[in-house]
């Protein structure tokens, strides 16, 4: 749940989420632009009891916002969470390429 779309984020924090996911090769996800729908914008905050946008959900479970995703990206947790969902992070392949050099 973000502001704007993955192709055209309208907020720096939403864009950061899109970029992080892209780094991991994750581009096939549902994105909901809360700017298009004020009820959605408030509703998703009520649902997760989280006051801000963007909100990242993995397999229906609320993970957090931009800050949390960034920290998960930096400490390797995101690769692990993606793995649990059967998604192989592109960064693992990038690391393999690095090791070959």
């Amino acid at each position: 749940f973000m502001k704007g779309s993955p192709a055209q984020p309208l907020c720096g924090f939403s864009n950061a989420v899109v970029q992080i996911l892209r780094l991991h090769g994750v581009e096939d996800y549902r994105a909901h632009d809360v700017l298009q729908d004020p009820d959605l914008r408030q509703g998703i905050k009520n649902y997760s009891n989280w006051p801000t946008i963007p909100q990242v959900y993995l397999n229906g479970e609320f993970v957090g916002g931009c800050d949390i995703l960034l920290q998960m990206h930096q400490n390797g947790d995101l690769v692990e969470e993606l793995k649990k969902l059967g998604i192989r992070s592109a960064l693992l392949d990038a690391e393999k390429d690095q090791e070959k050099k």
Partner: protein
Amino acid sequence: SPNSPLSCSPSPMRGPLLAAAGGAMGGAGGPLARTIRAKLTAALQPTHLEVRDDSSRHGGPPGAETHFGVLVVSGRFAGLPLLQRHRLVHEALRAELAGPLHALQVIARTPQQWQSDPRAPPAPPCLGGSKRERHRG
């Protein structure tokens, strides 16, 4: 560039959280900043606290007090996953988040974590407009 995480700032704080803000403020000083500082101090007894007014980086005038970043170092976070830590911070600022506080960046560390790594990632650049967006579809 004001968005550079390496910008040198005369700020007395160690973390680049404030340096990334361009160094204009050595800790935000407006009324909302003071409220945020007071509430986080009361709720979490932080050993280290930085409060940054990012509003000017999101199209608002300097000191607009709509977008903030906070770095909270507190023993209260021990054993808690990031989500729970952030929820504690949000809880302390519930009234503000329902009101004037439009966006809140949160870094929540335990004292041990802060000691071993006294750095914080810079805020993502604002996208209000266009600028240096490389991946724009």
